[in-house]
């Protein structure tokens, strides 16, 4: 099923935001929509978007490549994106991330063996006063977690694992 068949209402609402002759503006929200199920944009979805807004599929791919929140490869169900930029680093973010890696037994860029969490390092997320902090990105959206400790993070992962918690 194409994107427009799967999400007719959403696609309609997205296009309604922009002038009718400016279809191309819809590319960013459409890419988020395409990521909803798998957490990344599949080749088919890229083609769907290209057709919907009448641009070439390579242009869609170039946009995916330009922005950090679009992905063209599968990763864990959740991308745990820890900020280690300067203000957070001044408040211990590098140590936090190193400890987290040790506890999870994975390196930055790797995924927990159960396929749940991919650990990533990112730039400032506008939460510098609440370091250490990270965001969880899934197909469904992005959620901030601030003033974190390694213990609290492990608890969160456990809750995600059990399915007690969903990210909105």
């Amino acid at each position, binding site marked *: 099923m194409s994107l427009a068949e799967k999400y007719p209402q959403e696609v309609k609402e997205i296009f309604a935001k922009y002038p009718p002759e400016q279809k*191309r503006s819809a590319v960013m929200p459409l890419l988020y929509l395409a990521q909803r199920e798998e957490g990344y944009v599949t080749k088919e979805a890229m083609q769907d978007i290209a057709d919907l807004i009448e641009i070439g599929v390579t242009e869609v791919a170039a946009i995916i490549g330009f922005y950090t*929140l679009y992905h063209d490869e599968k990763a864990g169900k959740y991308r745990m994106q820890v900020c280690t930029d300067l203000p957070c680093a001044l408040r211990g973010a590098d140590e936090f991330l190193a400890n987290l890696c040790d506890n999870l037994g994975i390196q930055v860029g790797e995924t927990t063996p159960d396929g749940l969490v991919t650990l990533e390092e990112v730039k400032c997320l506008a939460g510098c006063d609440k370091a250490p902090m990270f965001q969880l990105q899934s197909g469904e959206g992005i959620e901030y977690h601030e003033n974190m400790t390694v213990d609290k993070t492990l608890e969160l992962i456990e809750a995600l694992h059990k399915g007690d918690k969903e990210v909105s």
Partner: protein
Amino acid sequence: MAYVLLRHRDIPDIDRIDVYKKNGGFEAFEKAVAAMQPGEVTEVVKASGLRGRGGAGFPTGMKWAFMDKNNWPHYVVANADESEPGTFKDREIMERNPFQFLEGVAIASYAVGANAAYVYLRGEFWQVARFLDEKIAEMEKAGFLGDKLFGTEYSLRIYTHLGAGAYICGEETALLESMEGKRGQPRVRPPFPPSYGLYGKPTVVNNVETLANVPFIVANGADAYRKYGTEKSPGVKVFSLSGNVNKPGNYELPLGATFRELIFEHGGGIPDGRKIKAIMPAGASSSLIIANDKALDTPMDYESVPDVGAQLGSASVIVVDDSVDMDWLINKTIEFFKHESCGKCTPCREGTYWMAHLTERIHSGEATMQDVDLLNDVARQIQGKTLCALGEFSTMAVVTAIERFPEDFEKRLASGDKHG
């Protein structure tokens, strides 16, 4: 003193439309639409002396007056990209006092004759965008957005648009490219957005905090606003305070408050009995100020900060204590700029790459004095040669770290080469 911008700290549930209304909400918008000409609104904002809070400090009323009246439609775009490391003020305004910001967007739209406005949020602000969507829907329901507002012919709609993780999209022309569905790379200027903006149409791009000031100005007049701040930098500012400080957070203070007041009175000083070493007043894009008494007593306004060798910029004050070495610090900032360079022009793309190679080498203790000199040269060669300010920003901390904290570099050089 009552808050002007962070009013949720006085009135916690001001994010509810009934509470916002009860506290004077939308009166300024109604006054503008029902009782003022668009040009009059622009005049009041001009007279208030409000300057853009996104970093450049450009006079807001003047920008609105530049809109090309021979080319329609007009657009307003609120810049909610907020990606400068150390900046988190727009987020608090949108999350806690959303209607005041949206009312500012609405008044700006009326003033420049726009019937559609967009809020461009960084992609990470996914939840903020959803929240604003709800608030926009509430405004439509209450008759503050839509057709024929306040019984006039004026109509307005506001939409959110989510970016997807790219610092450069905070630069206003890159932001417009991104909104048009392209890669977010800056345009060659001129023309500037008030003559050639979104979809090639005249567009005002203003920062979230800038717009949040507007309802107060229109409701109370320019003189009331000028009671805050200094002659040339009137008004209040939200300072994002981060780094080695006891109480990081946002602080709304009049422009012209000193670094000492912000860091020691409000921010509770430096943790663990350490001493303050340096201040970056404009986030990672900032020059490093040596935090001596003169610097601490400097007023934080657009005119005074240059006296101590930096710019006020977005007023994201990063505090650095004496346990931090500058070779480490610039390695962090360069890593950021290397990652965020959009690649459109060579000096920035190659320069940030080259600087990152050198800062990494210096920080790892393998470098000689020649490497430090080379780093300084590379940084200086980037300056003045880039299409947008990001290239320039990337060099500020590097050049001032080497100039103002040379001992940190000498200490790190490969042994036996202290004087290389």
